[in-house]
């Protein structure tokens, strides 16, 4: 069974590593343990350990979930130029995009799982055994598309890895790779519709929501990708073409400009009209009846996004690695605020009967979320450590310092 022995050698890569690698994994394991402890506390005492209440029924967990669906969807931004336009510098690294998609979806599923009050009842969602409310409930759609996306990208990743390890071509999987492009748009659209379909929540019940979801996803996902690619480049000493990074940055610039345009369109409609539906928007950016928990965050997000747009629009800036990285961090923070708490909380504030409950995540929520982010980082680290040597051995990459062919 040469396949398994081959993969077995690759698996040994996971335990081999320098001091930094071990320290990083150890740190992640500490965070995961913290998260687990917090989650056990939440299981025993109920979701009262969070600061969610009936007025604000979803909080930090669902915020993180929404943000991460965007990160997962944005993996296509690597796939499109790689396979549709055969842009070689990105094609080399497209599998890292798929790996990121897989990791992000795993985190999404974890964030939903920790948010439910009765995790033991989750089997009610399984067809035939349970009673999934498909196709009426958008949540069941989301479960289908997210798991499908996980399956597709997981399969592509491992198939490509297997073929590469045996020195074979993997072009037969191209249809599946192409399918992952509309599917990525699908996961994000369905997640947007999950909010969008609620007539009770005017802040979400606006047609602009799905386009904004996609626009912001195509900012945050690639920004994270640019940072991760550089880390991979440094850690594995492989040559990732700088043109790949600037090409991604260029795409991010368009997406960011569009995202800000959509925000402006939304703001105009609310502030010019001044109907009662302005309340959530006011709560976000101005404060409502003396409650301003999110105001500083929203202005920070806006400032970060606008600054990042300036950095990314000017080629001279985005071709400078340092400024590029600053821009990426700005976008990540900006979108994380805007598409996280900045999206979920105003849907509930004020609530359906006009009450304002100011939600701030509890220590439990922060610890559990840290644990989930760390599991995601660990998942990505281990899979990258496992797979990249395979690609290097198969001469898919040029190592730094080697003459390229």
């Amino acid at each position, binding site marked *: 069974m040469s396949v398994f022995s081959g993969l077995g050698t690759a698996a040994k890569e996971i335990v081999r590593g320098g001091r930094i690698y071990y320290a990083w994994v150890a740190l992640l394991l500490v965070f995961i343990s913290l998260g687990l402890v917090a989650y056990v506390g939440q299981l025993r*005492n109920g979701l009262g350990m969070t600061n969610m209440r009936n007025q604000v029924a979803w909080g930090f967990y669902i915020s993180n979930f929404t943000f991460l669906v965007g990160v997962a969807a944005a993996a296509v931004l690597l796939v499109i130029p790689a396979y549709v336009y055969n842009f070689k510098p990105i094609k080399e690294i497209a599998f890292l995009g798929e790996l990121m998609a897989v990791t992000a979806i795993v985190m999404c599923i974890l964030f939903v799982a920790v948010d439910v*009050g009765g995790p033991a*009842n989750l089997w009610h*969602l399984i067809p035939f055994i349970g009673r999934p409310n498909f196709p009426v409930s958008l949540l069941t759609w989301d479960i289908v598309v997210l798991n499908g996306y996980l399956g597709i990208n997981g399969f592509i990743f491992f198939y490509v890895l297997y073929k590469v390890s045996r020195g074979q071509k993997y072009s037969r999987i191209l249809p599946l790779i192409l399918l992952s492009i509309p599917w990525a748009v699908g996961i994000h659209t369905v997640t947007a519709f999950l909010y969008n379909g609620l*007539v009770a929540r005017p802040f979400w019940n606006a047609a602009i929501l799905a386009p904004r979801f996609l626009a912001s996803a195509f900012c945050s996902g690639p920004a994270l990708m640019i940072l991760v690619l550089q880390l991979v480049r440094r850690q594995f000493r492989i040559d990732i073409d700088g043109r790949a990074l600037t090409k991604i940055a260029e795409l991010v610039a368009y997406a960011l400009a569009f995202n800000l345009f959509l925000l402006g369109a939304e703001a105009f409609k609310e502030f010019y009209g001044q109907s009662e539906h302005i309340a959530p928007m006011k709560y976000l950016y101005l404060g409502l009846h003396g409650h301003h928990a999110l105001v500083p965050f929203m202005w920070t997000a806006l400032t970060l996004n606008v600054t990042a747009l300036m950095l990314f629009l000017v080629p001279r800036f985005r071709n400078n690695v340092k400024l590029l990285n600053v821009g990426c961090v700005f976008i990540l923070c900006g979108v994380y605020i805007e598409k996280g708490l900045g999206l979920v909380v105003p849907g509930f504030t004020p609530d359906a009967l006009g009450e304002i409950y100011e939600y701030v995540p509890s220590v439990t929520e922060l610890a559990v979320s840290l644990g989930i982010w760390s599991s995601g980082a660990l998942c990505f680290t281990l899979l990258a450590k496992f797979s990249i040597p395979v690609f290097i051995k198969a001469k898919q990459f040029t190592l730094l310092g080697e003459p390229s062919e």
Partner: protein
Amino acid sequence: MKNDGCTPRACPSSEAPVAGATAERGAPLLQLGRRPPDRRAILGASVAAVAAAATGSGCGNHRFDAHYKELTDEDKRRIFERIEAETRARTGVDVKISAPQPMDGVEFAYALDLSLCNGNRRCAEACARENNLPDVPKFRYIQVLEMDRGTLDFENANAYYEHDEVPVPGKVYLPVQCQHCANPPCVKVCPVTATWREPDGLVVVDYNWCIGCRYCIAACPYFGRRFNFHEPTVRPRDINPDQGYISNRLRPVGVVEKCTFCLQRTRVGRYPACLEACPTGARKFGNLGDPNGEVRIMLERKRVYVLKEELGTLPRFYYFYG
């Protein structure tokens, strides 16, 4: 403005905000409002919850019970007996679980005369007792909104007023509970069909089947649903032993619950508890299919309206000025 000074950390349930100084001014004319749960009570509840979680005792819930609609009569008998036994073991109270069925040709509806309601909130308290709502943390199915006369502005309404006497001059009161919509948005979104509209119009929840995702809470335009963020604790002496399986039986932590128009009463010909408790006669309840029913008469003779009609939810809860 509501909930001033009630930070999430300081307050176990935002629905039990800090009561104003008025609460300490001696016995009010009517039993009004609510008091903040004291720290010891919260601690006690938490300890009880841990104990319950550790020993695996819940509220008679079983992980592998089938959905309510799939239960045979035999299943029901077995499950009800189990819940009764577990409740007895846990609280020492003998309860009787039942599942009265909808009657043919009956569609329940509610009508409320806003010109009579004076904001005394006896409905909300009677509801809490009838439906075994927890004392810690405290929440109610009925929110009575106090608004300035001349407005129907929810955003400036207050559901947590504390007065010695009601009505307060210049204020009007609007009680809101589950509107039992004919086109309920909450039912549509449930990912596991744990909530549905019964043939007689009652929107109910199967507490054993709910996964606690709270999507229905997000979908409800009327704040009609409550989630058990904490282990609900009802003092044994306050437990109403006459319990409906899909209505007022003791709920476990982590599921959604709501007003059922007192299904356990109304399906056997009684009035809902909120109506019986109302001292002003503002509340009317009946069968829409009965031409001489109370609600039908109000619909025909009064100018009624429903809340948020533009959302197309078709509430079966009508408001009118008598």
